[in-house]
């Protein structure tokens, strides 16, 4: 058989690694054919809706459901009393704490779930919510974690104040844990002796992932067969199944959890929410399916927030600017329950990546978690566990140190970067960075934006401002970040005891197409596109002939889900490894068909060829067919493989960002003139998908840095629970982003990929913030807190006397 197609064309046809293949998901999403939880309508289905607390802290004196029950179409109203016999009025959180499902005697934050109304449709349910009469007695409200740690007011009366919590001893009845890393004594000694020390306090405000689709679930208990099916907005469906089994006592094989299309997660859909539990209980009680879907206000007020870290730093250096030590203390506001979604042994996530991209010989991190009268959560909003906080912290400390040293912040970074030859690099706080080439990336970025030219322009603008010729000033925001993603090695990362491996199972069909199922779940990342590309390159079947399926626990292999940029590092690795098993068997089949020894054939793009005689080959299509249609001595029929991948280490993507901004000092309005983002995520699977991820992550970074926050007043009223006040940028507010890259593969990942979905958010927030702060640096600014909305920027100008 003569081959008409060149090797190059065969590679192109596969649409494997490196191809900017169009997203296969988009055909349905752009035509309104996505299938989300709220699209699921089962026969006889009822709808649930919550009565929520108007108070941030109050005793629940009584709940009267009579009027609600009397409304035509209302089937049930559940309260904590109804859940108590099932031990479901409280539920465990991912952080080792427990959380009320429905108010048990008191409420601890505004918007807390008090009763669950179940009715024939959502309209009746909404009317019934108004008819439930709850009598409250207001209690003193604590919204400030520092005051909370001093207060006599006990928030969590359910906890024994003297007993240790899930992460060790508690210092106060409103204290949750102290978590430490590094050498405090040694660090203090270095800092005390240093030439130069910069200290700063910064607040990383509370915000919210606010995915387009809010959270929801549909539970369907089939009492005849004893099977529970649960559809929901789950970033980790298998973990939900295990938790549901442990909570309900229903055996795990009798529970099927399905994550259908998910309209964005960004960490918000990792947690387990009272709505899920209530929909399950209601379905068990009523014997028919029950749907619960929250609205936007409920999403912003009650499901998992992000950040809310009060960070205090000390950084020391020599006169020349070589950093000698770093000390960080965090007061972490966790709200009413500790419902952070972190690996079990990491109550502050990977905050200890806070030494950043710098070779810092000694460091210390201490974190104190605190209860307050705010919504629980503490998820990783588009970042690996608390990495956004860590990178913001170090990138601000670098800027403050540059001010202290009277040095250029780009140069300060350069002289402190971990050098290429130092990798794998052991950080002072215990991480092993896998690979990096920071200097090359930094030089490329600074050159691309003409950094020196920008500084000259800025100096001229400052002079013009001082001469009274202009009322705008210019800021140059820099950030260099190192992410830590791909949790993670089972030896130290688990969620509720489940090791954080991930999985892939592949079946090759006789005609040479395939289906692969994974333990992860896409929420917009494009897994169906990119995982098929990994496989295409591994097994020589075109990506277009490979279906990727995720999210159904009855069919997908067990996995820990999608968050923390872990899908490509972990499930992507499992995919490659499973592909390699397929390839190994294919090799034996090919050798048999070609009547040569296994070792005499080799893989070539989409086929096995005889070494030295490439005109004699068997394509993967022919091999797949042979696997099913003939008996091959010594081999089982079929062509399938499964891989469970436990990564040996995390991966460490990095990047260099520059933002150029104008600020109108009179109105506080910023204008972004340029944003350059260089990302190194190792091997690039699909450059177009990477770019899309970067655009999205930068947009959310802009949001957080310039205005997006969850704010409370002193009474614990949430002031920002609608999209009028909670900032979601549109195309109008978002500048053009210039993207660029370098490639430093991960040495331990099977294809060298590191993950990218969250990098732009992690690196973007400090970059936007540094641009604002840098604009004011020539006028004496050291640090101001985010979000840099108009009035806060205006206030900085005002405090610096720029309005006088």
């Amino acid at each position: 058989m003569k081959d008409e197609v060149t090797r190059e064309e065969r590679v192109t046809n596969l649409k494997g690694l490196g191809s900017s293949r169009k997203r296969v998901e988009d055909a349905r999403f752009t035509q309104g054919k996505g299938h989300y939880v709220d699209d699921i309508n089962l026969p006889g289905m009822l709808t649930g809706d919550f009565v929520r607390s108007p108070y941030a802290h109050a005793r629940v004196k009584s709940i009267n459901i009579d009027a609600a029950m009397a409304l035509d179409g209302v089937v049930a109203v559940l309260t904590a009393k109804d859940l108590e016999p099932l031990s479901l009025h409280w539920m465990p959180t991912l952080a080792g704490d427990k959380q009320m499902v429905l108010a048990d005697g008191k409420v601890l934050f505004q918007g807390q779930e008090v009763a669950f109304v179940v009715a024939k449709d959502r309209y009746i349910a909404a009317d019934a919510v108004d008819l439930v009469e709850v009598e409250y007695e207001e209690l003193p409200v604590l919204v400030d974690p520092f005051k909370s740690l001093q207060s006599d007011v006990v928030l969590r009366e359910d906890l024994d104040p003297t007993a240790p919590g899930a992460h060790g001893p508690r210092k106060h009845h409103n204290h949750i844990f102290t978590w430490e890393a590094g050498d405090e004594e040694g660090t203090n000694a270095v800092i005390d002796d240093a030439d130069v020390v910069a200290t700063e306090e910064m607040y990383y405000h509370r915000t919210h992932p606010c995915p387009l689709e809010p959270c929801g679930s549909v539970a369907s208990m089939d009492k005849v067969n004893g099977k529970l099916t649960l559809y929901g907005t789950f970033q980790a469906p298998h973990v939900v199944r295990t938790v549901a089994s442990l909570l309900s006592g229903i055996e795990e094989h009798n529970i099927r959890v399905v994550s259908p299309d998910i309209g964005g997660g960004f960490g918000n859909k990792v947690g387990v929410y009272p709505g899920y539990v209530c929909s399950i209980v209601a379905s068990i009680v009523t014997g028919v399916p029950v749907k619960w879907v929250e609205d936007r206000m409920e999403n912003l007020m009650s499901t998992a927030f992000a950040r809310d870290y009060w960070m205090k730093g000390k950084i020391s250096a020599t006169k020349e600017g070589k950093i000698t030590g770093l000390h960080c203390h965090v007061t972490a506001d966790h709200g009413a329950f500790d419902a952070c979604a972190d690996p079990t042994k990491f109550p502050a996530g990977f905050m200890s990546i806070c030494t950043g991209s710098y070779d810092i010989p000694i460091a210390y991190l201490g974190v104190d978690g605190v209860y307050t009268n705010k919504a629980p959560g503490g998820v990783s909003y588009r970042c690996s566990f608390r990495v956004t906080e860590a990178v913001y912290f170090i990138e601000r400390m670098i800027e403050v140190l540059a001010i202290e040293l009277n040095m250029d912040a780009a140069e300060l970074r350069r002289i402190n970067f971990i050098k290429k030859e130092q990798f794998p690099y052991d950080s002072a706080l215990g991480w092993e960075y896998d690979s990096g080439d920071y200097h090359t990336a930094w030089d490329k970025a600074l050159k691309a934006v003409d950094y020196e030219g920008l500084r000259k322009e800025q100096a001229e603008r400052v002079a013009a401002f001082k001469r009274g010729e202009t009322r705008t000033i210019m800021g140059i925001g820099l950030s260099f970040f190192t992410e830590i993603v791909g949790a993670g090695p089972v030896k130290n990362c688990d969620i509720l005891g489940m090791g954080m491996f991930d999985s892939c199972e592949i079946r090759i069909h006789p005609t040479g197409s395939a289906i692969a199922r994974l333990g992860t779940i896409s929420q917009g990342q494009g897994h169906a596109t990119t995982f098929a590309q990994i496989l295409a390159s591994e097994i020589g079947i075109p990506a277009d002939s490979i279906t990727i399926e995720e999210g159904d626990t009855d069919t997908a292999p067990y996995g820990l889900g999608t968050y923390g940029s872990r899908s490509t590092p972990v499930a992507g690795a499992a995919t490659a490894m499973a592909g390699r098993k397929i390839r190994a068997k294919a090799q034996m089949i090919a050798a048999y068909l070609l009547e040569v020894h296994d070792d005499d054939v080799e893989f070539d793009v989409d086929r096995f060829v005889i070494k030295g005689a490439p005109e004699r080959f068997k394509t993967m299509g022919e091999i797949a067919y042979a696997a099913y249609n003939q008996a091959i001595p010594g081999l089982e029929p079929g062509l399938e493989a499964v891989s469970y991948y436990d990564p040996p280490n995390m991966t460490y993507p990095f990047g260099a960002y520059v933002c150029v901004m104008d600020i109108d000092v009179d109105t506080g309005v910023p204008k972004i003139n340029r944003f350059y983002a260089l990302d190194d995520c190792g091997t690039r699977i699909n450059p177009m998908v990477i770019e899309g991820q970067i655009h999205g992550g930068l947009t959310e970074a802009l949001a957080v840095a310039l205005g997006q926050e969850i704010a409370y007043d002193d009474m614990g009223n949430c002031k920002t629970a609608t999209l009028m006040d909670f900032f979601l940028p549109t195309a109008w507010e978002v500048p053009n982003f210039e993207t660029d890259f370098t490639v430093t593969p991960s040495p331990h990942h099977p294809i060298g990929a590191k993950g990218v979905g969250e990098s732009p958010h992690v690196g973007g927030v400090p970059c936007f913030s540094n641009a604002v702060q840098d604009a004011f640096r020539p006028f004496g600014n050291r640090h101001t807190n985010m979000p840099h909305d108009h009035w806060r920027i205006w206030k900085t100008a005002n405090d610096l006397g720029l309005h006088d």
Partner: protein
Amino acid sequence: MFALALIELPLLYSEVYRRQGGHRMITSAFEYHRPSDLAGALSVLEEHGDDARVIAGGHSLIPMMKLRMADVPHLIDLQDIADLKGITVEVGTVTIGAMTTQHDLINNKALLAAAPIIHEAALQIADPQVRYMGTIGGNVANGDPGNDMPGLMQCLDATFTLVGPDGTRSVKAREFYEAAYMTEREDGEILTQISFPVTNSGFAYEKQKRKIGDYATAACAVLIAKEDGKVTSASVAMTNLSDVPVLSEAAGAALVGTSCDAIAMKAAVAAALQDIDPTEDNRGPVEFKIHVAGIIISRAIARAWSRA
């Protein structure tokens, strides 16, 4: 008349949270009426009194109904009443039907020539989706201090036509607004049209907002007529800087007779700031709003003067 709207007033939202723990997206049940003429609409209004309310584009009213801040057992949709739509420019007067959408205002050539300030202002309201639905009548009848059209109408010295059971009457925009959501309109009346003189004055509508779709942190409408290098008349009106739109006569007077030089401008801004009374909200504290208002007013005056 007490009307409600989707507004930013934190006062109202915290009231929502207080009452319900803050979640609402479904209105109470209501009866839907869709008359085809004004008489039909008026008679439903008369029949149900307080229990009835007209709906125009719904982009202020429906959010309030969803939040259950407005309970409207009888909703009277005006969209089938053809007489309430359209823009005419005749003998020096512009007349706009109450049900004309903001989108139509933006795209009407005759209006662009007769009062270009409307074009400039309407483009700064909300986003295209809202502007396809939101009407000029709803915007001015609403009584929300955040709405942009009321201040603009005061600047243009517009006249509102109200039709009720007792017939038709006219009210000046400058006399229409009493307090937040309180206007001269009686419960049984429907606003049918808005009219104002054609203007060839220099104009500007300047608005600071946090993002697309946001109400003003501060906004200002200015019209300036010029002859021989001097201001012959000026009107300055402001949005969202008090519980009602604010026309600052003193600011206008400070400009008349001057060449809009720095001193006159300063005097006008100082006068305008005397007339406002902003409140703190998520956009910022009072001190910030006053400062920004001063900047926005002076920019609006400068731009209007440059076009005079």
